[in-house]
C-alpha cells in the first residue's frame, strides 16, 4: 500500500507539473522560469503545512506521508529543473536572471515552508515537532 501511495502520488504530482508547463509557458531561456518557480513555492508551502499536520497527527499517517509528502508534493516540486534552468540562464549570458532565480527560489522556498508550517500550527493550536 505504501508503494502504491508513493507511485500514484508521484505520478499525479509530475503530471500536474507537466500540464502546467505545457499550458502556461515554455521554460526556455532567457526568460525567468516562472512556472517552475511557482510550482516550487507552492510545493514548499504545502510540505511545511503537511509535515506539521503529520507531526500533530492531524493527517492519517499510514497514507498521509507516502501519498502527500513523498509522492504528491515531492513529485510536484523539482530540484533538477530548477538547477538546469539556472545553468541555462547563466550559459545564455543571463547570469543576472540566473543568480536572481537561484537566490529568490532558495530564500522564498524556506519562507514558504515556514509560512505553511506556521499556518498549520495555528490550525492545530500548538507548535508541533519539527523533525525533518
Amino acid at each position, binding site marked *: 500500500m505504501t508503494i502504491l501511495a508513493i507511485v500514484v502520488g508521484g505520478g499525479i504530482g509530475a503530471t500536474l507539473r507537466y500540464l502546467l508547463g505545457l499550458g502556461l509557458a515554455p521554460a526556455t531561456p532567457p526568460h525567468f522560469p516562472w512556472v517552475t518557480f511557482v510550482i516550487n513555492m507552492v510545493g514548499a508551502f504545502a510540505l511545511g503545512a503537511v509535515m506539521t499536520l503529520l507531526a500533530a497527527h492531524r493527517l492519517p499517517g499510514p497514507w498521509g506521508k507516502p501519498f502527500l509528502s513523498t509522492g504528491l508534493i515531492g*513529485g510536484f516540486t523539482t530540484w533538477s529543473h530548477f538547477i538546469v534552468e539556472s545553468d541555462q540562464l547563466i550559459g545564455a549570458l543571463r547570469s543576472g536572471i540566473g543568480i536572481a532565480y537561484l537566490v529568490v527560489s532558495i530564500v522564498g522556498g524556506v519562507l514558504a515552508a515556514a509560512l505553511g508550517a506556521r499556518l498549520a500550527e495555528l490550525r492545530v493550536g500548538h507548535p508541533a515537532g519539527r523533525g525533518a
Partner: protein
Amino acid sequence: MWVGIGVFLAGGLGALSRAGVDALVKPWWSRRATGPSKAFPASTFLINVSGAFVLGIVTGYAVKNVAGGAQDFASIVGVGFLGAYTTFSTEEWHSLGLLRKNAAVEAFNVLGSLGASLVLAALGLWIGSLL
C-alpha cells in the same frame, strides 16, 4: 495523451526511486556520520545532485535534437522521472529545520547542494549536447 501517461508512470517511478534511495542512504548516513554532520540531509543531497546531473544530459540532448522523439523522451524521462525523483520541497523543509538547529550545517547544505548540482548539471548539458 500518450506522453502524458508516460509522464504519469515515470513520475510515479521517480518518486518511488527517491523513497528507495532514502531508505538505503538514511540509515547508512546515521550510522556513519558523527557530530554535527549527522544533521546533514545526505540522502536528499545525493538524490538532488545526481538527478540534476542526469537532467543536464537529457536537456542537452533535447536542445540539440529537436525531433519529436527527443522531445517526448525529454518530457517522460526529464519532466516525469527526474522531476519527480528530485525534490525542491524536501530540500527547503530540511533547510528550515537546520536554520533553527544548526546554521553551519545549513550553510554547507545549501551551498554544497547548489554548487555540486550547478557544476554537474552544466557538465551534463555539455555531455548531452555531444550525443
